[in-house]
Structure formats: C-alpha cells, structure tokens
C-alpha cells in the first residue's frame, strides 16, 4: 500500500520536475517550482488585517478557505505598484499551509533543466531579496530568477508558521 503511494508521489514529482511557473515583477522574470503552486487566480477583494508587516496584505476567501496574501514586491522591498487587471495571485502551498503571492502578472510554465540553473552570485551587500533567490535559470538567453519558495516564508515567518500549525493541529 505504502509502496504504491510512494510510486505515485514519485510519478507526480517526475512530471513536475524542472517545471517552473514564471511571473513578472516589473521587468524581471521570476520562477517558482510548479510543485508548490496550487492555482493562479485574479485579484480579489482583500480584507486587511491590522498589526501585520506591510507585505502581508490581508486575507482572501478562496472558495471557502481563508488564506493570507503577500505582496511579493513589498516582500522584496521593491516599490509598490497599483494593482490592475493583470495583477495575479499565485497560490502556493508550503507545508500544508496555503499562501497567495501577489505578482504583477503571470508569464508561462517553463521547463528549465537543472544544468541550465546556476547558483546566484553572492554579494556582500546584496539587496534584501537575494536570499530568496535559489538559482538563476537561463532560457533562450533570458534570465529567470528562481525563487526559494521555502524561504519566501522564511525565518521568523516560517517559525511562526510551524509553531502555529503544530499548536493548532486539528
């Protein structure tokens, strides 16, 4: 029984391997491993919540499920931009917790072979968001910044996430 499940997981991971969802923040193209992405939705009305960091824009109702949304621009300490009809929310699930990422617009799903991904250069005074970049992929001479999804909800956030999900296990 467990073997079957393992095989299925492997199979699924196989078909998702090397696939990335790419999206734009301004002119830059970012990629998220497709296995984390559960869906892409248009912008919806966001309910603000007080006492939170600015990049946590609030919560939305995703077919009855309440999920928090994070503005990736603000998360990367970039200037914010008015939302428009191209603005998208990429819903990712990390450790069974769903979070929506607000991005300028979604580009495409790409296959980037692992040999085409290089580690990002380390800058001593690198900008804030560099720690969220896990690699740099090159497809047709266009650079895609591969996001470290695990890290995007990282550090103090990830901690709180684990702490809470262990405490609120239903």
């Amino acid at each position, binding site marked *: 029984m467990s073997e079957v499940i393992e095989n299925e997981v492997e199979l699924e991971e196989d078909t998702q391997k090397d696939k990335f969802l790419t999206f734009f923040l301004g002119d830059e193209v970012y990629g998220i491993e497709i296995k984390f992405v559960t869906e892409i939705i248009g912008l919806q009305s966001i*309910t603000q*919540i*007080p*006492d939170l960091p600015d990049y946590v824009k609030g919560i939305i*109702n995703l077919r009855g499920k*309440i999920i*928090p949304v994070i503005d990736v621009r603000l998360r990367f300490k970039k200037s914010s931009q008015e939302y428009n009809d191209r603005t998208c929310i990429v819903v990712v699930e990390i450790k069974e917790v769903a*979070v929506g990422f607000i991005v300028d617009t979604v580009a495409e799903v790409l296959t980037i072979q692992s040999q085409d991904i290089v580690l990002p250069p380390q800058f001593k005074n690198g900008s804030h968001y560099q720690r969220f970049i896990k690699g740099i992929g090159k497809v047709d001479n266009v650079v895609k910044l591969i996001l470290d999804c695990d890290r995007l909800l990282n550090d103090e956030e990830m901690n709180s*996430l684990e702490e809470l999900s262990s405490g609120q296990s239903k």
Partner: protein
Amino acid sequence: MDNDDSRVPMSDLFVFETNQMLEQLERLILDGEKSGGLKASINEVFRIMHTIKGSAAMMLFNDISCLAHSIEDVFYYLRENKPLLVDYSELTDLVLQAVDFIKDEVRKVENRESPTGDCSEIRKKSGAFLLTLQVIDPASKDISLKSLDHEELQHDIDEKPVREGQTKWEAVIFFDEDCGMENIRAFTLVHELEELAEDIAFFPKDILENDSTAEMIREAGFKVVFATVNSSARLEEFFAKTMFLKNFQLKKTINLEESIANSVVSDNSKPSSLQEISQRGESKHSFISVNVAKMDMLMDLVGELVIAEAMVTQNPELQGVTLDKFYKSVRQLRKITGELQDTVMSIRMVPLSATFHKMNRIVRDMVRQLDKQAELQIVGEHTEVDKNIIEHISDPLMHLIRNAVDHGIEPAEERIAQGKAAVGKIRLEAKSAGGDVWIVIKDDGGGLHREKILKKALERGLIHQADSLLTDKQVYSFILQPGFSTKDEVTEFSGRGVGMDVVSQNIEKVGGTISVDSVQGEGTTMSIRIPLTLAIIDGMKVKVGNSIYTIPIIAIKESFRLQDQNLITDAEKNEMVMIRGQCYPVLRLHERFNVQQTTTDLREGIMVMVEVDGRSLCLFADSLLGQQQVVVKALPSYIKKIRGIAGCTMLGDGSVSLILDVAGLAY
C-alpha cells in the same frame, strides 16, 4: 500486507471500549473514596475488571488480562465474602495503579505498538492484598484440596445394584483441548445424563469443589459409570450432542484402572487466534469514528449553505415583490438549515466531564503525597465545548489544579490556625455566558502575595519601581509571564518556574484568555474564557472605511449617535462618553485597525456600546450595516493571533469580514 489493516477495527474497538470502562472505573473509585468507601461499587468494579479481562484475553494481551483478572479476584472475594476489615484506601491505590497500567498498555495498542508492559509488580500487590483479606477475615474458608480417591468411586459403583432391564455402562470422555473448565463440563454432562440414567458415579469425584480436577480431566479423561435402560445408540447420540466433546469410549465393563490406561489422548487441532478471525472479513460497527477534517469540511459547507440561503432569500431583486408562497417556503428552508447547523455543531461538541473528572485523580494523588487535605468540587461538568478545545485545555487545567493544591491550599494545621476548615476546597466550574465558555478554578487557600510578586516583577524587569498604582489584577497577571514563579522551593508537582506562561499560551492557542484574581488569605481564582470557535453566531456588521467588521451581537448593549455634550476628553486625549451618569471609554475602530478614508468625526459615525466581563466600552464605526448570522472561522495560521480579532467570516458577496473579539479590545 493486509494483516495489520484488517486487525485495526477490532483493536480500535478494544481501545474504545476499554478506555470507556477505565474512565468509568476511575470515576467509581474516586466517587467511592469521597463518599466514604468503595463498598457500594464492588459489583461494578468486579464487572468492569471482568469485562476488560475477557476482551484483553481475546486480543491476546496477556498482561492486561492477567492484571484485570487479579483485581477481579480481589473484588470477587469482597463480593462473595463481604469481609469486615478492608483497607479501602489501599484498595483504591491498588485499583488506580492497575487502571494506570492498563491505560498505558491501551495507549500502546492505540498507537499500534504492542503492549509490552509487565504487570507482575501490581499483580503481586493485588495477590498480597487478597491474601491479607483472607487471613484477617475470620469467615474465610479453608480452600485446601480434597484428596482424590479411586477406591471410593469403585466402592460407590459396586455398592449400587443393577436394576432389571438396566445396563451398567462406563464411559470415558475427553473434551476438546482449550475448551476450559473441564470439571464444570463434566458436571454439565452428569447433570444432563441424569435425565437418561441412574446411579451415576464419576471420577474425578470432586469436580464441583475442586477446580484443579479440570487439569486431571484434561489429561486422563472423565470417567462416568451409570445404569440406564436406554440403548447404546441413544447414549451415543447423547454424548455426540455434548458441547466440546472430543471423543468418548462407551463400554459395559467396569474397570476404572484399565479404562484410564486405554484412553488415548489425541488432538492435533490448533486454536486460531482472534487476529486470524478478524482477517477473514470485515466487521460491521454500529458506531463510526469520523475524520475531524471531514467534520471541518461539513462545518464549512453548512456555513456556506447558510450564506447561500441568505443570498437567495434576502436577494435585493425580491424587494417590493409580494411572494407569500415563496416566503412560506423560505421559512421552511430556514428552519431546516437551522436544524442542520445545530446538528453539525453538536457533533463537534463534547462535554467537559471527562476532562474534569481527570482532575479528581490529580487532587487525590497530590493530597496523599503532599500530606494536605483538599477536596475538589466539580460544577457544570456537562458544559460542552468544541472537541478541539478539550484537547488543548486539558493540560493547562491540570497545571492550574496542581498549583491550587500545591501552592494554594495550606497545610491543615495552618488552616485550622487561621480559622478555616481543615480540608481545603477547590472548585472547578464550567459555565456558558455570553457566547463564551468560562472555566473557573477557585481555591480557598492562602492567595497570592502581592508584595512577593511585585518584588519578583521588579527583579525580572517587568516593572521599574514598585508601583503602588498597579491594581491587584495587574499585579497578579504577572504570574502569567514566562519564568515567573514566586515559590522558592520546587515540589514534585509544580513550581518549576515554567508553567503559568505555558498555561496561558496554551489557552491563547484556542483563542482563550486567562485572568487571575486573588485575595490574600482567602484564596485564588483563575478564570479561563474560551470563545466559541467554529461556531455560528449572530453578528452585527459595521462599516469602517472600506472594511466591514462583525461584532458578536451578544456583546452589544446598545448603539447610539453621539451628542456633543456627552463627550469628555481627558488630559491625555483619551475620549470618553458619559451616558446616564456613567463614563465609558471610546475606541475608534479606524485608529485601532489603521483604516483609511473613514469618518473621523465622532458625531457623524455611530457608537456601539459593548460589554464583556463587566467592562463596557464604546466602539466607534462609520455606520451599522445590519445583522447577520455568520460562521466563525479561524484566521489562517500564517497570521499570528491578533489582539482584538476573534476570527473572520465570509460575507454574502464572498468577501471576508473580521470578527471583533470584544474582550481583546477591552483590555
């Protein structure tokens, strides 16, 4: 690969039922102790142990079964011989130890481990206890074995003359291996044979008095001689109909020695285990255990149904149209959805009684160990809370109860010196009030020492100078801070300096709050407030800027528009409203929640006066949008708990409204 899976239902059933019985047993014992003796429950304890023994044996959990058996023996003796001298407190300890052991083992079974505990220690104790009973009880009988006598049987048989038409038979009977109680089976056979035959004699003779004859029959067979007019065919039919009869030899001669020698034991049947039985098919249960995730989903769906119903029945397009039949149907629909809601919610609700009764045990154990006197009074144990909450408050409650006994209740001499009753009282009470559930733990012990706490708070840098302006409640709340303990020595039960903060964290995890109140010399009261999570509440929607907040109706006292003369502003710019001679603080929701584009003129918006826990305040919003039933949902776990927000709910248009936690706003 299915071996384990198919066994699951039976062991689940075993775990379920055994746990229930253990709980019942624990309650019996503790109640018995309170009301001055286990005497009244001897029968029930016996029965429970008996049942556990049987079920455990079926599952091949030998240690559980043996232990239950040895306790059962004790209670059997108590029941049958009614000895006068019984040390009930020792007996209670014994049973509780057994309960603990079995509980542990059952937990292992529950976790799919094998129960490997060794019960021999407790069994020794129980054996010794029984022996003591028998020795000190003058009524106990000599239970030594009676001697067996072949010749006697021979004599009996020879003595009886054969009547006319009768034939004398001798039968040697072997029962199936493992059928158990062979002596009683032999007795059954003799009993039934009496209908067919006369002058019955048998060997071994003392099958009724001496249970060890079972062993003899197992090995050498059971011999019976009798006289009858019935044919051998009739006799053979009779034997064939005897339960568990493996084989028999029937002959007309009487020579016991010979027949013993001739009888051959042959049986190669092996018993199959219960596990094998359950592999053969699926069992059908009349109860089911439900995945909590599915319950949550059902809850969500019902919530959405409620919203959808509101969207249909309060649809703006219906306004101004006369639709008598439609509204009749609507009322019916509303009635059904209402009942559906109630039912779904009731499934998740569990009474606190089991959790509360666990505390009995804790108080009891501590009282014995600390040599104090205290009794626990339980009130409102039938109050129901969500299952999720039960799981989270059990540990905090235990901690608070321990604290009450350990730090609260004084030693008896001290109590008497202060003119209190020697026996300390701890009251554990649950009640529903204003949509919340309150759990209050109140002791009549020494109370908290304001000065000690202040000193400690100063040391820990919580305050900078011994501030006499702090209210008692504020001072006492320091004990909820991490690492805060004023108890100098550490006891086995509490006072390690970790504790109260963990208690308060645990309670906060389920959205609850805890507060402390105390009067020095008179006792301490800990009050836990648990909001009804996962519930459907009546809410008042209020608009603040572009946001819509929901205030639980139950907290609202009134709403009004402000008139100038009622507004007071103090030197620190705190706004207050004076109504009917009372002063209420104003909380501007737009400031509190940092909402833009909103009414800031207090006269233009609306004041909603809310009350919680005896405190009232006025919330300032732009306008009231109306009342609606809403389904309370928790905020996503990614977002830490935010003070003043109890959760959120979905509105008819799919947007999300935050539900205000009035208590969080008030403090």
